[in-house]
């Protein structure tokens, strides 16, 4: 029996994990979500802004991270629009643009926001570090027009927005190291207030920034997205996915415990 557990067919593990994810979806089970301190800080950073303040959204991920970061982006956009903040969106990842645009279309419609007045999508520009440093001088040097080629000077929302001094908060949605650059360049060199929303893989690397108060708040992975959805009282893909995530985690923990127990017992028996 122990040998069987120690050499379990990986396909059985896959089936169990898939079932652990499918069953909560089909049974529509929703677990209680506790909001963690980093997400609460991120929420507060946006909540305390005055109506009409400019918030820069940096969408730096692609479809590979969509399940984690898209619900997060939608939840934060809902919060921003609810607070009547001006949303300026840009991206350092080429494929972040369509994802950001999708999220803007959904949320702007819900809150009856107008393009060019309440929000704008500047799109993608290459040259990450150069752009981050350049925005400290003049955003128009890199984004003279929006994603559709409309000159930014013709858009109401961009009037009076020139550099970091005019941006109250920067929120980066990160699937890679772009968030580090935001903190090290825009944060450290220009004093820009930053909140990071990142994939779960990147989250452990961002905690030192939070501890050192280099960022205002941290939203990590699908769990972070679910917590933010709870705070803005708009349940979405984050909350729906959390039960499946918890079930999957429990299955993995059980497999790890069983695997280790059988390994150690078998090792002990071999010695005897």
């Amino acid at each position, binding site marked *: 029996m122990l040998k069987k557990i120690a050499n379990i067919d990986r396909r059985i593990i896959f089936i169990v994990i*898939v079932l652990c994810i499918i069953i909560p979806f089909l049974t*529509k089970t929703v677990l209680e979500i506790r909001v963690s301190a980093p997400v609460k800080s991120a929420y507060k950073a946006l909540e305390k802004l005055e109506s009409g303040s400019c918030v820069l959204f940096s969408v730096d991920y692609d479809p590979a991270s969509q399940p984690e970061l898209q619900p997060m982006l939608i939840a934060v956009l809902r919060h921003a629009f609810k607070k009547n903040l001006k949303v300026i969106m840009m991206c350092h990842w080429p494929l972040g643009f369509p994802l950001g645009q999708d999220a803007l279309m959904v949320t702007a419609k819900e809150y009856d926001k107008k393009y060019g007045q309440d929000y704008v999508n500047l799109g993608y520009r290459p040259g990450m570090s150069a752009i981050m440093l350049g925005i400290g001088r003049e955003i128009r040097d890199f984004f003279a027009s929006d994603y559709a080629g409309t000159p930014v000077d013709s858009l109401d929302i961009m009037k009076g927005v020139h550099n970091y001094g005019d941006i109250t908060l920067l929120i980066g949605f990160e699937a890679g190291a772009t968030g580090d650059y935001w903190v090290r360049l825009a944060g450290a060199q220009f004093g820009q207030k930053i909140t990071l929303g990142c994939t779960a893989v990147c989250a452990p690397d961002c905690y030192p920034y939070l501890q*050192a*108060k280099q960022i205002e708040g941290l939203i990590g*992975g699908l*769990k972070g997205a679910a917590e933010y959805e709870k705070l803005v009282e708009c349940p979405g893909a984050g909350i729906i*996915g959390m039960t499946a*995530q918890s079930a*999957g985690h429990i299955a993995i923990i059980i497999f790890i415990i069983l695997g280790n127990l059988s390994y150690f017992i078998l090792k002990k028996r071999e010695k005897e």
Partner: protein
Amino acid sequence: MAEIIGIWVAAFLTLCIFSFLYKDNPLYKFAEHLYVGSSAAYMLVYFYFFNIKPMLIDKFIAETGLARWILIIPTFLGVIMLLRIHPKIGWISRWSIAFTMGIGAGIGIVAGIHGYILPQTKATFLPLFIKGDLIQSANNIILVVGVLTTFLFFYFSKEHKGLLKPPVKIGMAFIMVSFGASFGYTVMARLSLLIGRIYFLLHNWLHLI
């Protein structure tokens, strides 16, 4: 109609990729090759229309004077980078690499020191005992001990034995906890991706939820 076709294609390709979990098969290979090919083509087109066309071709046509002719420098550096394919003159591409490395190092060193090392060092200068706040005091002690012992773990000028052994062991324990946290978050991230795909299959494709 186009949306429905898109969803069916996406669902088919998702199942093709998942079929690898059973074993390698032609359907998986087909989806894999399709992904690599379409991604490469997409990125090529994207980079042409977002890099080369607006930042080089259009600017060269629109600008005048120095702003126009200075564009020859990046064009030259870009072209010589392509010389790597020729073994005899491939060495010329090192000029472009040197230029890129110079800029990267310049930005990286300033960002690394000013934006990471100094603030992070500053953040470890914490009071070890705070009156009336035992939890915060414990947190600060753990943080400071963790930083110092982890540093000692990476101190290789002296063998890790004698007086150095206990703190190095503690440092190793902190590193292990860090690895554990990273692994836990990685599992969470990968499960989230699976959840996203399964949600797509059940919601968008099969309309079961």
